[in-house]
């Protein structure tokens, strides 16, 4: 079935966006990305380390996976805008996963700095994909600011706690005019399927794959879960009933 994910006019046949953090080696990451079927994958921007061996950029280029730089580690709008501009220059893309976090313990987004940074980056011509809390009002404000998608968290980054407030995710999906991508908190395949069943346009995950006992196997399970959840969403689930409804004819 032809059902591409559309972000800012670009088509992706996979609805699974991968992160690259936490993998034990580039070789393991490479196999996991291949198994995931992803076409869009995040990287972080850091100071050049002359001793570093191998490059995640070469790996993504070899696989034909589009790179999505993030602003991980930024606590203020000013820092995030600077990192986004460095990424645009280094990687030749104006797409950015905008992350502005409030503190190290929760890694929750700082809504005020996030919205400020989104405003500045949109004005500077960036295609902004913000990592946000599961607040429907903030999601709406980010969309109004011109973001190309909104990416609410299911639960804190790396926690694997799944989607703690499914109702809020539904509210965001209901009113959003841009793709909603569930970002952060996915623990296992069922969490990714639930995100898609709730109507999310895609899922972004890293830890649940890169730190799984078998990253490659978990990546494949995520690929299938995202597809299964999407198909279930499109198919339309039956209503929940309080009592049984016989599936065999009662007469005859």
């Amino acid at each position, binding site marked *: 079935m032809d059902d591409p994910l559309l972000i800012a006019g670009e088509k992706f046949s996979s609805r699974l966006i991968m992160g690259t*953090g936490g993998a034990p080696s580039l070789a393991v990451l490479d196999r996991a990305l291949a198994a995931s079927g992803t076409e869009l994958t995040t990287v972080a921007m850091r100071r050049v380390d002359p001793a570093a061996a191998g490059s995640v950029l070469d790996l993504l280029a070899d696989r034909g996976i589009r790179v999505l730089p993030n602003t991980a580690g930024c606590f203020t709008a000013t820092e995030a805008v600077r990192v986004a501009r460095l990424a645009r220059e280094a990687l030749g893309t104006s797409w950015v996963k905008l992350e502005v976090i409030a503190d190290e313990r929760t890694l929750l987004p700082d809504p005020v700095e996030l919205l400020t940074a989104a405003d500045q980056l949109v004005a500077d011509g960036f295609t902004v994909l913000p990592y946000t809390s599961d607040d429907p009002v903030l999601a709406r404000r980010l969309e109004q600011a011109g973001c190309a998608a909104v990416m609410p968290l299911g639960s804190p980054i790396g926690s694997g706690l799944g989607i703690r407030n499914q109702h809020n995710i539904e509210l965001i999906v209901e009113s959003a005019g841009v793709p909603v991508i569930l970002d952060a908190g996915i623990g296992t395949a069922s969490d990714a399927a639930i995100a898609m069943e709730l109507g999310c346009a895609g899922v972004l995950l890293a830890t649940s794959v890169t730190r799984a006992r078998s990253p490659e196997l978990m990546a494949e399970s995520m690929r299938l879960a995202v597809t299964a959840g999407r198909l279930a969403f499109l198919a339309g689930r039956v209503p929940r009933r309080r009592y049984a409804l016989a599936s065999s004819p009662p007469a005859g």
Partner: protein
Amino acid sequence: MKVVINGEPHQAAGAMSLAQAVAVLTRAESGVAAAVNGDVVRRAAWHTTQLADGDEVEVMTAVQGG
């Protein structure tokens, strides 16, 4: 002249361009960006950007993350 490259003090014998400062760390032809005192400088302008005493240079690339 003394400049700071990715947080490390660096003593230059004479004039130093941004291109020379970047080359202290990497010879990569792509995937690298540089900023001087917080302002991003396009790669095409690295050779013509002369550093001044005390300038802080950041040289960044993509790593696994997110």
